[in-house]
């Protein structure tokens, strides 16, 4: 505790009026600057489209906006958005629950974890996307094969982090509870699970984009709805604006998913924020 006080060496600064370093800009000013940067990029894109670079390659922001608006206006986008949200959320939930249970189970059983070790790592090293054809065979062309692909991408990330979290639990805390007459189940619920939560959340947070990736890839391979299908169809119709419009929707979804997980984490781990 005493060693945490670090002394920053005082650099001899030339005597001239202090300007605030750019990194210390106020949050509001930074948001403003971020918006400006976005607008500049869009303007550059708009101006270069058709002049510097062929519109067939990069479309243009206005074309993309028009396409997007068209989809929203005629309502055709919603079926795709819902299909993607559904598969992502279900895949994520199934993968997360399986990953947490598996991680806790193996983390608590040295025998099982040693027994299964080579198989788990072999399976983990496998590019899960390559399982897509198998899932389509098993679960059909419908939404279930996308759920399965998303889940299988999620499960390993959550599993590995949960497992590490259980292994990282302070054995002294476990011992102190054993001395207080705690039963096995109580040690699990009162020490191991709460202390592994921060690890589990790291796993859940990294897994969110993968759930989306699994779903999108599944939809691109074989589907009749979903944003991945939309990207794939627009591409095959040489509709660059359509591809970009679908990508915009996917990006927005990804941001929303991340935000939701972040909020949930903040709520559950109030003590961590406080103790800092």
């Amino acid at each position, binding site marked *: *505790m005493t060693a945490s006080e670090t002394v920053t060496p005082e650099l001899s600064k030339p005597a001239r009026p202090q300007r605030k370093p750019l990194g210390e800009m106020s949050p509001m000013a930074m948001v403003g600057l971020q918006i400006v940067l976005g607008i500049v990029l869009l303007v550059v894109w708009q101006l270069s489209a058709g002049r510097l670079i062929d519109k067939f390659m990069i479309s243009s922001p206005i074309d993309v906006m028009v396409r997007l608006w068209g989809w929203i206006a005629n309502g055709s986008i919603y079926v795709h958005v819902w299909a993607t949200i559904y598969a992502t959320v279900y895949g994520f939930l199934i993968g997360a629950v399986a990953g947490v249970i598996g991680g806790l189970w193996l983390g608590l059983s040295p025998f099982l974890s040693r027994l299964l070790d080579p198989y788990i790592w072999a399976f983990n090293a496998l590019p899960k996307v390559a399982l897509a054809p198998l899932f389509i065979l098993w679960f059909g062309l419908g939404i279930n094969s996308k759920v399965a692909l998303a889940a299988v991408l999620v499960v390993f990330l959550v599993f590995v982090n949960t497992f590490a979290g259980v292994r990282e639990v302070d054995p002294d805390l476990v*011992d102190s509870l054993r*001395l207080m007459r705690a039963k096995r189940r109580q040690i699990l619920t*009162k020490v191991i699970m*709460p202390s592994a939560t921060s690890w589990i959340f790291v796993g859940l947070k990294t897994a969110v984009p993968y759930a989306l990736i699994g779903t999108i890839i599944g939809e691109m391979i074989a589907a009749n709805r979903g944003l991945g299908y939309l990207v794939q169809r627009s591409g095959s119709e040489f509709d660059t604006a359509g591809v970009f419009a679908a990508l915009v929707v996917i990006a927005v979804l990804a941001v929303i998913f991340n935000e939701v997980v972040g909020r949930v984490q903040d709520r559950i781990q109030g*003590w961590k924020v406080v*103790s800092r």
Partner: protein
Amino acid sequence: MIELQGIGKTFRKGTEEVRAVAHVDLAIQPHSIVALIGPSGCGKSTLLNMIAGLYPPSEGRVVYQGRQVSDVNTDVGYMTQKDNLLPWRTVLDNVALPLELAGQSQAKRHEAARAMIRQVGLDGFENKYSGELSGGMRKRACLARMLLYEPKALLLDEPFAALDAQLRIAMHDLLLKLWAANKQTILLVTHDLVEAITLADRVVVFSRRPARVAHEQRVDLPRPRDVAQVRFTERFHEIYNAIWDKLREEYVEEKL
């Protein structure tokens, strides 16, 4: 109360064998405070762990209230240098944990915990998380949690080592007051000879690894003791010097 009979402990690390404790015989009377002192890493903490039943001795046996300790000994309170508070719980919920594990209702256990928190002088901090507390406050919380389930024996493994001198004296005072009220049997491992003599009825000096009992000294200072002043009395100095002579023999070779 606690009897160590021919205790030995050997740890195995790969092919290397480390003998931590050898042939320790020690009997601790009920309601007494016994301090164990000796060079660092000599195996004193190993002894406490075996009394707590966290692992079995390689030789000999530990007898606690007439029964051999073969599993985790849930009748003892154990406190180490590290405070094992759960960081995601408030002080109140940490202190109430033993009663929560015993299945008591929230109202009941919070009431008991509040009373205990008052006894150790932590009132007003019930809703803080352990990360927000100072080192001394965390010790108080640990003490409160340990006392709440009323163990007959307390095993203290350098509990106050990380505190500064003033805080340590305050904790000694608190410990002796709580002991006077409840008369638990206390086994205290320490590096600090002044702490050992101030608190204990008996000081046991251990040798370098593997730990053996090198010397025993009764501390016949009258009770109640004034923990801030007792160290300046003549009798204290006599005892101190007697133990220090023995202790130095154990330390001398280690330093070379």
